[in-house]
Structure formats: structure tokens, C-alpha cells
């Protein structure tokens, strides 16, 4: 089964975004490791600690994974079961691939609504109306712009938020609107990547939404440090 993979020619813009996403993922993981390591050294050797260290690392962890999910849809690297689809004729495979793509579209759309509804009050914005289908914006939802993180220091570069959403009250810690902003951003990106994958499937440029289990690919992947169960 051929996959939409790196070996296809890609535009300079696509290459730029691939590189950008890959660098961000590498950078975040590197930062997580160094902050955790620094905290061990500070505690064991100097009896100190970065009191915000743990919380920042956890935020970075969430950012890395949420950003990376859309990258996974772009590169068709998410795990799935292909035992059944592999025994079907090509036509059947295509039908199931299109159904799968629709399933993923519904998932991504619902996730985006949930993410917006969750994040909006933290940004003093309104969540959407409707149980599953957004039918407009609710009115008069109490905002949660005052809600700050436990220990992450406030950064001066975000002081403009105080006037914008916090009635001019100063923040003594970083407000949650900032770390949580990754949710609507990344779920929107997931939706975009799933739409693109669906188009590729419908136009026959891609065969499925899951990583193929052909052995040679597997080894290639694991040799690069993937699959770690």
C-alpha cells in the first residue's frame, strides 16, 4: 500500500511548514527535558527548585502533543488496525477509507467546538450555543479571564491582556488563557489536516488515514526511534 509520504515532491511552502512543525516538536521536547533535568540538579546539589518548573513542563507536554496530532494526520502516521481492510478488494478499501475520513472529520469538528467552548471564557469570549452543533454564540457567559495558572510567573510581554480582558486588574501569575490557547489553535489545525487528507483520499492520492503495517516501513520507523511500547 503506498502512502502519502515524504518521498512525494512537495512545494517550498509545504517543506517550510514541515520543517517548522518538526523544529517546534524537537524544541519543546528538548526544553521539557532540560527544565526537568535542571530541577533535579538544583534540588540535589543546591537545595533549590524552580517552583514553576513542573507546571511549565506539563504545559509544554500538552503543547507538543496537541500540535503534533495535526502533523500526524498530515503525515498519515497515526496507528490503526488494517487487518480487515487489507483483505478487502481495492474498491472496498476505498469505500472504507472515505467512511473513515468522514468519521475523522466529525471527530475533529466536535473537538474544535469543545475546544472553543472550553477556551473562550478564559479569553473573555463567548462559547458557542448548541449541544453539538454550534448555532451561534451564548450571551452573558461569566468570563474566566481572571483564572491564572498555579505557579507560572506572569510575563511582561502579556501585560496588554490585563487591560483587554481582565478589567485592568494586574495578573500575578500567567493567566490560563495563554496555555489553553493551544486547544482551539491545534484542534482547528487538526480539522484542516483532516480535510486535506480527506481530499487526498477522495482524489485517490492517498489510500488510508492510518499508518500502513508493511514490514519494511515499520523497520524504517522503529530504526528512527518510533514505536516504543
Amino acid at each position, binding site marked *: 500500500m503506498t502512502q502519502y509520504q515524504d518521498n512525494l515532491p512537495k512545494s517550498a511552502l509545504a517543506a517550510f511548514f514541515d520543517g517548522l512543525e518538526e523544529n517546534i516538536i*524537537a524544541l519543546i521536547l528538548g526544553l521539557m527535558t532540560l527544565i526537568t533535568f535542571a530541577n533535579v540538579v538544583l534540588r540535589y546539589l543546591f537545595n533549590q527548585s524552580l517552583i514553576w518548573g513542573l507546571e511549565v513542563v506539563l504545559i509544554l507536554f500538552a503543547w507538543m502533543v496537541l500540535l503534533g496530532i495535526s502533523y500526524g494526520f498530515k503525515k498519515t502516521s497515526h496507528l*490503526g488496525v488494517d487487518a480487515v481492510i487489507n483483505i478487502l478488494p481495492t474498491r472496498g478499501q476505498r469505500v472504507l477509507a472515505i467512511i473513515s475520513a468522514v468519521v475523522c472529520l466529525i471527530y475533529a469538528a466536535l473537538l474544535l467546538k469543545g475546544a472553543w467552548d472550553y477556551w473562550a471564557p478564559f479569553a473573555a469570549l463567548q462559547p458557542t450555543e448548541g449541544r453539538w452543533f454550534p448555532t451561534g454564540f451564548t450571551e452573558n457567559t461569566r468570563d474566566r479571564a481572571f483564572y491564572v495558572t498555579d505557579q507560572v510567573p506572569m510575563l511582561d510581554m502579556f501585560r496588554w491582556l490585563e487591560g483587554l480582558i481582565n478589567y485592568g486588574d494586574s495578573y500575578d501569575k500567567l493567566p490560563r488563557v495563554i496555555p489553553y490557547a493551544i486547544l482551539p489553535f491545534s484542534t482547528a489545525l487538526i480539522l484542516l489536516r483532516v480535510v486535506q487528507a480527506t481530499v487526498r483520499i477522495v482524489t485517490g492520492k492517498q489510500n488510508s488515514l492510518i499508518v500502513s503495517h508493511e*514490514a519494511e516501513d515499520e523497520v524504517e520507523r522503529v530504526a528512527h526511534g518510533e514505536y*516504543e511500547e
Partner: protein
Amino acid sequence: MDVVFLFAMVIGLLLIGVPIAVSLGLSSIIFLLMFSDTSLASVAQSLYQAMAGHYTLLAIPFFILASSFMSTGGVAKRIVRFAIACVGHFHGGLAIAGVFACMIFAALSGSSPATVVAIGSIVIAAMTQMGYTKDFAAGVIANAGTLGILIPPSIVMVVYASATDVSVGRMFLAGVIPGILAGTMLMIAIYVMARIKKLPKGEWAGWGEIGSAFKDAFWGLMLIVIIMVGIYGVPGVTGAIFTPTEAAAVASVYAFLVASFVYRDMGPLADRDGTGPVSLLNKPQALVTAFFHKDTRHTLFDAGKLTIMLMFIIANALILKHVLTDEQIPQQIANAMLSAGFGKIMFLIMVNVILLIGGQFMEPSGLIVIVAPLVFPIAIELGVDPIHLGIIMVVNMEIGMITPPVGLNLFVTSGVAGMPMMSVVRAALPFLAILFVFLILVTYVPAISTFLPTSLMGPEIITN
């Protein structure tokens, strides 16, 4: 029953080729929308908190990163050389050395497929050269590779500890004796087969080779010491230095330093033109550039990408878990099982069956996140030790990895050995039988799992 509908939806979506994570997540969301008042926003909250709210799961990216640095950084090949020097001269010696090397690598890495690739890619080729059949070689490595999650550190144990709030350190200790036992059982079986089938044996290369192989592998082997001393301390010398989660981060930094500056198989000092690695003295700026070198960046990205794949599944399994909790499913299942008069034995058989079936479809971490909260309260009620339950789950996951259709070790082994997957399944079968015997042993002799943690850390306390 509604919950049957939920699980049917998950399995149906899985089988038509929907990504595992989406199958879990969308089924949960639909179930939530149909049967509960809980908002979609709570799904987003669960998704974010899967990472930001689970401190122990942080060990996953770090252990993956440490493994990546060791695979790219040449630690594996040095371990194989050391293992062959030790046991290569027995009947079936190279196969035994393969198992032994898998055990050592398992003590460095939290993962099974990584163990298969790191050791298998070297050992299987060597075995076929020495006259073993490819089937035999592949069967040995596919099975021995599963020790990666039983011998600590282990990603699956981290996930179990996080799902049930037991101590990660205890789980790691609990895996030591079962891991050594399983490895020994495999080695004995190979030795017996070797005597019967007259399998080749290698030359005894002498203590000198053991010594020099050990010296070469020393920096890699030191990682085991660092992790163990760091987590448990040395009585009378130092207390523990870090938590199991932090241990994984320290291991990553250490593996990076060894790979870049000691072995120099990667990074700015690596051999680029066949003249051998560069000395740090000639290129002192490497101390800084190593952190930004493309090898480092590439390793970080690969580890990050794998973390993302796993965490996407785990996060959606956590959404499913949240929905199950919200609808009080665990209590209902617990009540049903308890009122059916299930005893300990029957319960443990049930757990084995559920996990063995689930393991055919699901990736281990995701499965544990879902099953552990369902069976944990019943186990406590029936007086099953939580640590013992955890080891039973891990062994079930090992078996799941070498049985089709979803068996990561199978895919990986078939690739490493260059043979069709069904042949690997057949080749793994005799050794799989050993793992089954081992599962029964572990299930019905709790002391194998609980002896070490209990004697070193005191009896398990159940805080829930």
C-alpha cells in the same frame, strides 16, 4: 445495554480503519452527547489534562527520548558484543546471548519494539550466519523483545501507575524478578532445544573479551546503575536523587552526553569521513553545537513524534475513561462481578481473558488506561494486591504484542528479519507457549511480583 453499544462502536470504527485514537475519542463523544448532560468543553478539558494533569505520564516522552539516543548512539551494538562474550559459547549460545542482550537493553529502555530493533537487527543476522534458521532467530527475538516492558523501566508500568495511582517506583521494583524469571525461562528453553536440535555453539573467547567488551559497553551499562541508584538510592551513601519520572529525563540527558561525547556515534564529533570520531580537544565548540546538531534535533523530533502518536491514543483513552466514570460504569461492572460471586481466581482469569482479547486490537498503553480503572476497584475489593495486578497486566500486554492482528513486535520482527508476518507468527509460537506458562505462574504466584517491593519498600498501602 448502552455500554455494549459504546464498545461495539469503538471496535467497529477500529476495524474499518479509523485511527485508534479517533475510534476511542469519537465513540466517547457520541456516547456523552447521547446519554449525559456533560458538555463538549469537558472533552477538550480531558484532552488537555491528559498531558498537563498527569505528572507520571511525563515519563513517556523522556524514556522514549533516552531510547532514541541509545539506538542512534551505538549503545545497542556494544551491549550485543558484551552478551555474546558472556554466553555465546553455550549450546544455542548466540540465541541465549540474544535473549541476554534483550534483557540488558530492556533494563535501559522502556519499550519492547525498540528492544527488538536495537538487538534484533544485530543478533538475527549473526544467528543466520552461524547456521540458525531464520525462523528460530526471529521467534527468539520477537519474544525476548517483549521483556522491554517487563524489566524496568517500562512505559506500560508508568501508564498503569498513572491510571491507578500506585507508586511507579514500586511497579518498577515488582518487574525485576518476573523479568529475570521470564528471561531465564526463555534461555533454558533455548538451551534444551539446542541440545535436542544440535544447534550451533560459539567459541569461548576468554575472560579478556568479556573484560574488553564490558569496558566498551561500560558507559551504556552505567545508565542502569544511574537509573537504579537515582530512584532508590544507596543505603548509607545517598538517598534517592530523583523520582521515576525525573529519572527518565536524567537518562535522556545522560544518553545524549554518552552518544555525543563518549561514543561519538552521533553529533558534531561523529566520524563523517571514515577517519574515526573527532576528539573534543580538536573541536571544543562541540560542547555547545552538540545541543543544536542536526542529529540531536532529529533524535528529539523522532522521539517527540512517537510520543505524540502514543499520547494521542492515551489521551483519547482517558476521554473514554472520563465518560465511563461519568456514567458510573466501573461501579456497575464491579457490582455485577461481585454479586455474581466471583472469587479472586475467577476474577484474575477474567482479567487475563479481557486483556488477551483487547490486546489483539489495541495498543497496550491505551488498553491499560481503559481496563485498569474498570478492574482496579474490584481487585481491591477482592484483596488482590494492586502491584500484582499491574504485573499481570504487563505480562498480558507482552503476549498481546506478539499475537496478530495488532502486535507491534510482530511487525518489527518481520521487518528486521525480512520475513512475512505470518511466518514470524508461526516462528514465535513455541516461545509464546513459554510466555503463557509464565503468565499462569505470575498470575497465581503473587510473591514473584510482590516479594521485592514489599521487602524493600514495606507492604503496599492502599490509599484509595
